């Protein structure tokens, strides 16, 4: 540990770290453009200049190591003047097209000009014209005019994906970032380039010109598209009610979590958000023959609970079958385990998930669902659906999710379902299956409910709802807790389960894995 002084306050910091990191730990922000925590210092933007006592010139905070007794000034007159100078040079060739730049609002250069610049430009020369929309990758557009040559993109492709599609060409004022010989940036992590670009030089076609960043609301969540459990920020527009424009998710950004995903997410998770808004089920649907019940959750709940009660009374709970999926959270899987396995001794519990696909050695895992590990640790054996078994002895079938249609053809499923007396589907999206079921209950997505997921490494991560569920959708844990209470084997136990946290506490009590991981 060494003692350093930043702005005349003393701090104890670790030996060997840089002034920038020491200041960050001390809560003092030093402006920076090229520096990124994921990479070693580059020192090309010159924004992080600080004054150090005893040194004749200003030094770069990002690449200067701390010494014992070092006195650093981050707000002295010389530093403020130097920052202005650096900004003036950076803006000399930077086009002022903030109104049409997608980075506006998130742009560091814009923020620093507001905070440290605010000068009148002294440059009378015309800014140089350059390529404004070079397509450098399947989702990326590069604007050479806006680029400040911080090299974050080049370093990302060199150090994280090891693909090195981008390079620096020419020298001096002609320096530019570009691809080699028309070989585009084509890897599963290219979307990160648009996120780490400190200005709007690299923008992604998916978000390009769609909306403005300050109109978006943000919410922390977990990516459910593979079992890695990357931390994400879902950025959505709440909608313009006066113009009948509904809520819409516009982009997914990665959040920093060094234990899970570092700083990055893959393109599958970044661009695969359309499922949140498209084709959603938002009304409870009931088949015409069942005239007795109204399409409300209370009525449907009564109906399902009566059926289960009846079968339980006749000691025929073996005629209940469940088809689950591993998009269900730990809490929901626990409730299913508790209600159907412990209370009712149901044996036919199957899993239907999206088919596995290719993973990679950075983040993406082969599973295409977020909680397979959670289901395993819960003590539910992940056995695939056997249609023949379902067809023979089932009278009540509860299906969660629509993934059985990925494995079997609709006609096969219909044939089997026609033989079953009562079929209930809990699904978030509308599809061919819904017409085969007696009751279809809309469910909330991961982004719309609270709970926790267990990722492929066995790490339990909590998440909270980002926005309200669409229409009449309810989170599955709520429906399951209601169901548990309604058919009355142990109502007082289910009575207290009003929040995912309460269920989580019960899970920890009963399942050792979740207790140890706490």
């Amino acid at each position, binding site marked *: 540990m060494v003692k350093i002084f930043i702005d005349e306050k003393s701090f104890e910091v670790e030996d060997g770290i840089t002034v920038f990191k020491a200041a960050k730990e001390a809560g003092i922000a030093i402006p920076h453009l090229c520096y990124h925590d994921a990479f070693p210092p580059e020192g090309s933007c010159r924004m992080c200049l600080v004054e150090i006592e005893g040194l004749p010139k200003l030094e770069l905070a990002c690449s200067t190591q701390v010494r014992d007794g070092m006195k650093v000034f981050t707000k002295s007159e010389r530093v403020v003047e130097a920052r202005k100078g650096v900004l003036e040079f950076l803006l000399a060739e930077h086009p002022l097209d903030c*109104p049409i730049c997608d980075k506006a609002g998130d742009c560091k250069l814009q923020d620093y000009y507001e905070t440290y610049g605010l000068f009148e430009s002294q440059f009378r020369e015309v800014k140089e014209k350059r390529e*404004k929309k070079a397509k450098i990758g399947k989702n990326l557009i590069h604007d050479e005019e806006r680029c400040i040559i911080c090299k974050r993109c080049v370093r990302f492709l060199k150090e994280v994906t090891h693909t090195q599609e981008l390079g620096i060409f020419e020298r001096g004022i002609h320096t530019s970032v570009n691809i080699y010989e028309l070989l585009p940036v084509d890897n599963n992590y290219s979307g990160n380039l648009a996120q780490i670009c400190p200005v709007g030089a690299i923008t992604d076609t998916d978000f390009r*010109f769609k*909306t403005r960043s300050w109109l978006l609301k943000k919410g922390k969540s977990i990516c459910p598209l593979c079992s890695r459990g990357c931390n994400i920020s879902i950025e959505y527009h709440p909608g*313009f009610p*006066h113009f009948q424009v509904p809520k819409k998710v516009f982009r997914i950004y990665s959040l920093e979590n060094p234990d899970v995903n570092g700083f990055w997410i893959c393109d599958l998770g970044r661009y695969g958000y359309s499922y949140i808004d498209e084709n959603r089920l938002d009304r409870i649907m009931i088949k015409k023959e069942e005239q007795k019940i109204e399409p409300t959750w209370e009525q449907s709940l009564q109906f399902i609970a009566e059926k289960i009660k009846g079968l339980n009374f006749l000691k025929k709970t073996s005629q209940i079958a469940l088809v689950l999926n591993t998009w269900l959270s730990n809490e929901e899987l626990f409730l299913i385990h508790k209600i159907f396995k412990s209370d009712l001794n149901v044996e036919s519990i199957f899993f239907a998930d999206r088919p596995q696909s290719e993973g990679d050695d950075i983040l993406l895992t082969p599973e295409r669902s977020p909680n397979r590990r959670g289901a395993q640790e819960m003590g539910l054996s992940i056995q695939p659906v056997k249609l023949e078994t379902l067809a023979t002895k089932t009278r009540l079938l509860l299906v969660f999710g629509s993934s059985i249609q990925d494995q079997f053809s609709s006609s096969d499923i219909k044939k089997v379902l026609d033989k079953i007396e009562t079929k209930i589907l809990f699904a978030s999206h509308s599809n061919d299956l819904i017409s085969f079921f007696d009751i279809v209950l809309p469910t909330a997505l991961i982004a719309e409910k609270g709970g926790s997921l267990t990722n492929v490494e066995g790490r339990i991560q909590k998440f909270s709802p980002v926005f309200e569920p669409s229409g009449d959708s309810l989170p599955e844990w709520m429906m399951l807790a209601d169901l548990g209470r309604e058919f009355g084997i142990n109502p007082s136990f289910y009575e207290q389960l009003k929040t995912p946290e309460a269920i989580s506490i019960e899970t920890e009590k009963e399942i050792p894995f979740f207790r140890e991981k706490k």
Partner: protein
Amino acid sequence: MIKALGYFIEIIRGIVITSRHFFVNFFFRILNVLGIKTKRKGAVTIQYPEQRKEIATRHRSLHRLMAREDGKPRCVACMLCATVCPSECIYVEAAEDPELEMQKYPSKFIIDIGRCCFCGFCVEACPEDAIRMDTGKIELAGYSRDDLVYDLDKLLK
């Protein structure tokens, strides 16, 4: 009783004031009509709509979108007007233009005049001077609410 008398006196005072204005205005108006110039104009009423007052240059009337030389809107769909609008009556949807110079343009630009409070913030916020409130149109009534929703074509005229 005394209170009621007080009201009565006030009513009479009111009638006196009103009739004084009426007769004084009447007198000067007659002088004006006869061609005798006086300092006072008499009747202040304008025979709207046949006769109209000149609108001040800073008056904020119905919006219009400015067009470029080739007829396309000047607007680059930066959505600053929609952001600043306090009554949330502007809706802009952007699209990409294949032309290199102006890449972003509004594919939809809707102002709901029925909600607009004519504060003029959109004009102030616009970085391209694309929206102005200088048409001088102040009669904006319509037979339905939909008549008051102005789209890109209507605003560009």
